[in-house]
């Protein structure tokens, strides 16, 4: 079922001179088993939207349904909602605090009131899922490398068994290999656990490679909600919103301008190379 967002708006500091409308009549669905990219410049409203999704903020107007139920309805169990719609904040490694990795990951399940045994089971499963075997369990979180810390933090949210996992800029500050590792891991997790991932990102190249749907926020509005190739077709409009398309699209656009009949709707280097090779014909072949 997933999340259904019905015409929500949100205003910060209503009735004061500082009043800001952060979300402006947004409607969309976040179905099960989907990989969604959420993009938008700083201040576009994407963080506000994300905080709506697990009930941290309440819309000033409109409704949010999770599995068919209004999350702000009377008697709705929002604690359970926060387990089901897991949120991994930016730089989640700053939120590790327990004495060892295993206890840190057990913190969430413990808060759900699960038995000690169940917490331990979930924590170890989650840690294995993020590629951190038993040798990490008793380590202090502070002795981990940057990438390991981040994976431990993700495990902490995974241990809540979310149906939807929202990650806010999970690759910020990581080197290219680290970026690939985390995104590969997330993609793998999605396949195994069949959950929905919402990836909040500033990197169009990352988004293009992994997601099957992109939501674009601008000035509190949802301006695009479509498959990547459709969204990136609007790269000129994206630029006016402080965003961009993946690098490879610009390269292909330019080659086309220069008269090469290449496909401009590619999203990765391999398909770009395929398309270029196809236009080169026999002229370009032979070993260099």
């Amino acid at each position: 079922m997933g999340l259904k967002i019905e015409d929500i708006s949100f205003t910060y500091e209503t009735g004061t001179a500082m009043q800001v409308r952060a979300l402006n009549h947004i409607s969309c669905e976040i179905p099960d088993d989907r990989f969604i990219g959420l993009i938008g410049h700083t201040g576009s409203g994407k963080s506000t939207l994300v905080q709506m999704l697990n009930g941290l903020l309440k819309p000033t107007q409109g409704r949010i349904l999770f599995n068919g139920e209004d999350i702000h309805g009377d008697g709705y169990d929002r604690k359970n909602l926060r387990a089901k719609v897991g949120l991994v904040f930016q730089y989640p490694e700053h939120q590790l605090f327990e004495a060892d990795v295993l206890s840190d990951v057990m913190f969430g399940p413990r808060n759900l009131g699960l038995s000690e045994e169940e917490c331990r089971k979930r924590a170890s499963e989650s840690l294995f899922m993020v590629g951190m075997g038993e040798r990490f369990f008793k380590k202090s979180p502070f002795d981990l490398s940057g990438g390991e810390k981040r994976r431990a933090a993700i495990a902490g949210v995974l241990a809540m068994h979310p149906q939807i996992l929202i990650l806010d800029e999970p690759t910020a500050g990581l080197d290219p290999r680290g970026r690939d590792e985390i995104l590969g891991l997330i993609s793998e997790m999605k396949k195994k656990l069949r959950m929905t991932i919402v990836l909040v990102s500033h990197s169009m190249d990352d988004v293009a490679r992994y997601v099957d749907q992109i939501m674009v926020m601008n000035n509190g509005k949802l301006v695009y909600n479509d498959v990547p190739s459709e969204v990136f077709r609007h790269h000129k409009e994206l630029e006016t919103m402080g965003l961009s398309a993946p690098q490879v699209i610009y390269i292909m656009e330019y080659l086309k301008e220069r008269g090469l009949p290449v496909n401009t709707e590619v999203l990765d280097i391999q398909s770009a190379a395929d398309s270029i090779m196809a236009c080169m014909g026999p002229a370009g072949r032979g070993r260099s």
Partner: protein
Amino acid sequence: MIKIRKLIHDYLKHDEDGAVSEEIRALAGLDLDVKPGEFIVILGHNGCGKSTLAKHINALLFPSEGEVWVDGMNTVDGEKLWDIRQEAGMIFQNPDNQIIAQVVEEDVAFGPENIGVPGEKIRKRVEESLKSVGMLEYRRKSPGRLSGGQKQRVCIAGVIAMRPKCIIMDEPTAMLDPSGRVEVLKTARQLNREEGITVILITHYMEEAIEADRVIVMDKGKIALQGTPREVFSRVEEMKDLHLDVPQVSLLAWELRRRGLKIPADILTREELADALEKVIS
């Protein structure tokens, strides 16, 4: 401008009794010379020592062994500490952690005030600094209301107001959206070209390195590769081994060569790629 000789830095870990339990070598005998006015980009995977290096140039860290000279001053010379920090300003990843005042111009004035620049001169410096980062019209605004790119430019203005000869930027764009990234990079280039300030930019975005005078790739606390962007980015395989990428154009050109297309190995821009492809066809 900067002279680094056989720089070694060990981070010491202490156990509960305060005794040293572990030594981690972050810099392992690094040599580096930076000429005045150079624009240098430092690349390297997480943990390769690049941030440690940056902190040495700003005298926030001191060598375990070896020497660091900034404009003729040795960083271990306690008397010169403040001069060094003034000459080599530093910008960090998160602008929110660097902004302290409620109003943009007050934030920029903070540095000069601290070193006792007289009032009238401060006003002038603040104005000039904000102008050179293109933020003068926001002087009376609250930093909280600015975008990430604008905040980072205010931080840069704060450093420039100290009249440094060199700015070290440690992943200044990591937290910014694409337009913020472009703004900050443009500002860095402008300061370098128009005001002759030496820039050392640390980044994980390969695209940001294309216009540098020199690219330095670090690995295991040492320089693994260096040269012009063209030289460095034509070594695709070595870069991959170092956990890094090359700009997308270079990667695409490399892939095309791998598939047998006869184009040069050192393509860096889309113009060069188009030229090369046209040559193949004709």
